[in-house]
């Protein structure tokens, strides 16, 4: 039994996005990579930008993203997606260019590339999938791994003394003048997924308006390497990751930070995240 056609009086309100291919993904059941792919594809559809979008995949589980998005795609060496996207955007400024990078790729080996892409204010959009672990290689500790979190390479749990605290990339990049839009969202429930989609759309719009570097960090799950069932993995994001990586807007374009009821602020999640986000945005405004 496959897809059953509904009665003719039924109108589709949600269908498979145009900007995804029908190729089945290799992601594990319940992995939120699929949700991130879907949201990005939905936004590309909404912007009617499929024919001029160019993505750059990273190394990691998302290495095969080129098979799943029905848009032009490149695949960069480990950590170098922002460099490749820089070149693409500079020779094809009319293209909508995005990178799709995991935390092992972006925050570790690619830390220099992402930082300097932001420093240069490259007019590209980065989707940063933070699941606090290296997924593809078998669950080793990443720069974003939580203190105490057990991984294949930190079997006793990450220790503050030996390995330091997790790197908060959004807070870091928000300090950079060239960054125009830096926000963190989560994919652990329906409300957060809808907020994430709005942020993805806003990030693409920032690029279209030529405002500079935009990044959306998405807190994601890795059920397999966390050793949790898919639903328990979403609870782990909510209970363990969100406190360590507060959701919020760390930098938004000037016009949006001006009013107290700016669109960006209204879209923020937890109350604490609002405070953290506006504190950083405030520093950026004064500086």
């Amino acid at each position: 039994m496959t897809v059953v056609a509904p009665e003719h009086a039924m109108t589709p309100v949600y269908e498979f996005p145009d900007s995804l291919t029908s190729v089945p993904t290799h992601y594990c059941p319940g992995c939120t990579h699929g949700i991130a792919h879907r949201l990005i594809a939905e936004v590309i559809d909404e912007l009617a930008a499929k024919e001029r979008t160019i993505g750059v995949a990273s190394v990691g589980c998302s290495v095969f993203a080129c098979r799943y998005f029905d848009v032009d795609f490149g695949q960069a060496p480990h950590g170098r997606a922002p460099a490749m996207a820089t070149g693409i955007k500079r020779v094809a400024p009319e293209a909508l260019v995005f990178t799709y990078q995991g935390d092992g790729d972006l925050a570790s080996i690619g830390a220099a590339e992402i930082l300097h892409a932001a420093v240069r204010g490259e007019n590209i959009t980065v989707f940063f999938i933070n699941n606090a672990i290296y997924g593809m290689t078998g669950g080793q500790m990443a720069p974003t791994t939580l203190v105490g979190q057990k991984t294949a390479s930190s079997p006793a749990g990450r220790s503050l003394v030996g390995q330091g605290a997790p790197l908060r990339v959004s807070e870091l990049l928000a300090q950079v003048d060239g960054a125009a839009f830096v926000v963190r969202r989560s994919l652990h429930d329906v409300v957060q997924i809808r907020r994430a989609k709005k942020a993805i759309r806003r990030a693409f719009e920032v690029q279209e308006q030529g405002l500079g570097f935009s990044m959306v960090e998405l807190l994601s799950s890795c059920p397999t390497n966390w050793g949790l069932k898919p639903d328990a993995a979403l609870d782990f994001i909510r209970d363990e990751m969100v406190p360590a990586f507060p959701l919020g807007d760390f930098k938004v374009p000037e016009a949006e930070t001006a009013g107290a009821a700016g669109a960006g602020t209204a879209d923020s999640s937890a109350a604490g995240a609002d405070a953290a986000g506006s504190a950083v945005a405030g520093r950026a405004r004064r500086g």
Partner: protein
Amino acid sequence: MKGTVTVDEPRCKGCALCIPVCPKGLLRLADARFNARGVHPVELIDPSSECTGCQLCATMCPEAAIAVYRAVRVRA
């Protein structure tokens, strides 16, 4: 009938994330059959037409395997 959903069963990985978000509890894993992946796909059980087409299940689905339909008034 206000709405309905269809599941692209060959795409479904049986992660079951859609099941708890359904406000009416109309989704379940089809225990009696497997897809080609060897997992029980999700199915809609809606004998009294309770589905409103709210899209919460489709919003949660990592495989984009759920399509949602809503009834529209057809003018005669």
